[in-house]
């Protein structure tokens, strides 16, 4: 018997004790289960951080976002940030820059969108409050994620990657509305519903992929 600071003499390649063997086999088996779960859950689980990826020049991304805003902007600006209500199924552009998320989004429940994320200056982090869903936003890269809001409500986008001294003020807004619930409200408040029907059936935005 010797300790870890003594040199083993002769041949040390000896059969392991039974307890040790059992442990190694168990640990190995467990590691293989985890290993198998990785690809399996990627195919079965359906919640993957991978999406459509493309390089994009920051200025080109800014132009795309501005066009997106111009096309689908609704109502007034809020805190200087335009509110945009894109049609179901469309490409949605969100731009991170020191220290703003533009625009504010108004999306519909149970509808799939392609959410594009990019930055025009440094790294930012997309963190959806209160769901705690997080993605890295990297300048020069367009990260397109297929998303379907499953809950109506008023949500926030927190920046969770350090982006300079204003990092902690960088909060954006996403509102998810439920068209079914809104239709019920239709009877009492006809004005509000108008905005919704206005944009509903447009398939545009798919083209620029």
């Amino acid at each position, binding site marked *: *018997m*010797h*300790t*870890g*600071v*003594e*040199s*083993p003499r*002769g041949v*040390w*390649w*000896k059969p392991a004790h039974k*307890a*040790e063997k059992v442990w*190694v086999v168990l*640990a*190995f088996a*467990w*590691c293989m289960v*985890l*290993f198998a779960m*990785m*690809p399996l*859950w*990627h195919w079965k689980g359906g919640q*993957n*951080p*991978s*999406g459509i*990826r493309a390089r994009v020049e920051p200025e080109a991304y800014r132009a795309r976002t501005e066009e997106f805003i111009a096309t689908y902007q609704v109502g007034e600006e809020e805190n*200087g*940030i335009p509110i945009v209500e894109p049609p179901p199924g469309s490409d949605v552009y969100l731009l991170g820059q020191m220290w703003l998320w533009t625009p504010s989004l108004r999306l519909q429940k149970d509808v799939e969108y392609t959410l594009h994320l*990019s930055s025009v200056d*440094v*790294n930012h*982090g997309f*963190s959806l*409050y*209160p769901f*705690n*869903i*997080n*993605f*890295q*936003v*990297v*300048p*020069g*890269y367009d990260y397109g994620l297929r998303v379907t809001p499953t809950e109506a409500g008023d949500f926030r986008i*927190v920046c*969770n*990657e350090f982006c*300079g*001294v204003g*990092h*902690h*003020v*960088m*909060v954006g*807004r996403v509102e998810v509305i439920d068209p079914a619930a809104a239709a019920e409200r239709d009877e009492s408040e006809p004005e509000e519903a108008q905005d919704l029907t206005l944009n509903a059936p447009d398939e545009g935005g798919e083209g620029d992929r």
Partner: protein
Amino acid sequence: MKGGFRVCPTTSLRVHRQADGLIKANAVVATVSLLVGGITGLLVLLTRWQAVHLLDAVMFYRVLTIHGMSMLIFFIIFFEMAVLYFAGPVLLNSRVPAPKLGWSMFWLMLLGAVMVEWTMFTGRADVLFTSYVPLKAHPLFYLGVILFAVGTLITVAIFFGSLVVAKREKTYEGSVPLVTYGAIAAAIIAVITLVHGAAIYIPTFFWSIGIGNVDPQVYRMVWWGLGHSSQQINVAAMVAVWYLLGALTVGSAVINEKISRTAFVLYILFISMASAHHLLVDPGMGPTWKVVNTSYFMYMAVLASMIHGFTVPAGIEVGQRVRGFTKGMFEWLRRAPWGDPGFSALVFSVIIFGFVGGITGVTFGTEQINIIAHNTLRIPGHFHATVVAGTALAFMGVTYYVIPLIFRKKVAFWSLAKIQPYLFAFGMLIFSVAMTFAGTFGIPRRHWDMTFSDALFDLQFSPAANLVVTVMALGGLIAALGGAIYILVTVWSVFLGQPMEGDATYVDARSS
């Protein structure tokens, strides 16, 4: 340069004068870095604790940068250089092959570290320790990192040289001891790491002086080849220190050399892949890349840690039983030297690293769970359990042996030293678990204001989140107290402590 050996009265190892000197120098600088990192850590803690919110925003990010660099880079790596000089020349009874070069590299590393600290303290590098481009720091920040890395790389080469010298001069019989073997694994991983470091910091340095460009996503990928692999140096070095502490405190047995050494080889082979888990929610990489890199290879490194997690405690048990604690199932554990800070540090390091650090790490490394963990407080919660309660605590434990064996001083304030690992481990346990929970609310890491008082849109975390952050702060304060005691004990012992008895004169090898 003066040579000669002394014989250690406790271990009867032959210790080379230059090994003694280089271990001391590196350990002292490591402790100073720990002090800088500790004070800044406390300031960061008192700012994140929303009820106190001590620093303003500019200072918070600056001080957080200093904390990350001083702890993760300077404290840990200077200490590891000392470990290499111990595991090579000392454990093999051999000399330091190129002492002049060793000293030059020590000074080079120190110069690099001072340059980096200067840029950070003067507000020229508010970029956090990851320094993701295109956030830009002063060129001397990057240059300092490069000089530090060059010094480290050459010190690693000297360690390899000492293995060759020891073999040729037949200063040991048989194979190298397991602790040295673990240090070799750490050193090999260090080479891989530093190559990544050069690949990213050299172009970034040039970019900072206006030459060329660095792609932000490529930066993140190569940087984590450095950032993550360096955590594997820490793991391998920590496990080597576990075996060392086992041997020193209770005469732990190596139950099977084959198993333990194979596990170290697994670290070397599979660890670099794991850096992919920092990029799981990045736009630059596709799903195949993410799945392959995080599954297949990573789990072989996990297996290695699982093996050490068994063999280290088992070795302690066997060692204790050989020493006569054989009654029943647990006399070996009950009668273990719980008052020896080296031993308690070892036990807590194994437990917190394995259970808190390991479990959080493996789960956050999956593609899907990473979506809810990325850049939240879960991440620093995880790594304060691995590199702090694991590696740093193990290094603290071994210091209580380095002081008498290398510095030849008695450990001062023994009763404080005895409780130090308990305070640090207990505090860190609360701190890291609470921080991990805080992350589940979506509280971001590296963030000055979780009340978002100046933000465009209002946002309020639930009151439960505030409670968890308060618990985290209390845990952090206990840990900081443990850290302060460690620094008090080590500095006092080394500079003002009583010398050990016994002969410690160096005798030239040829004349003896």
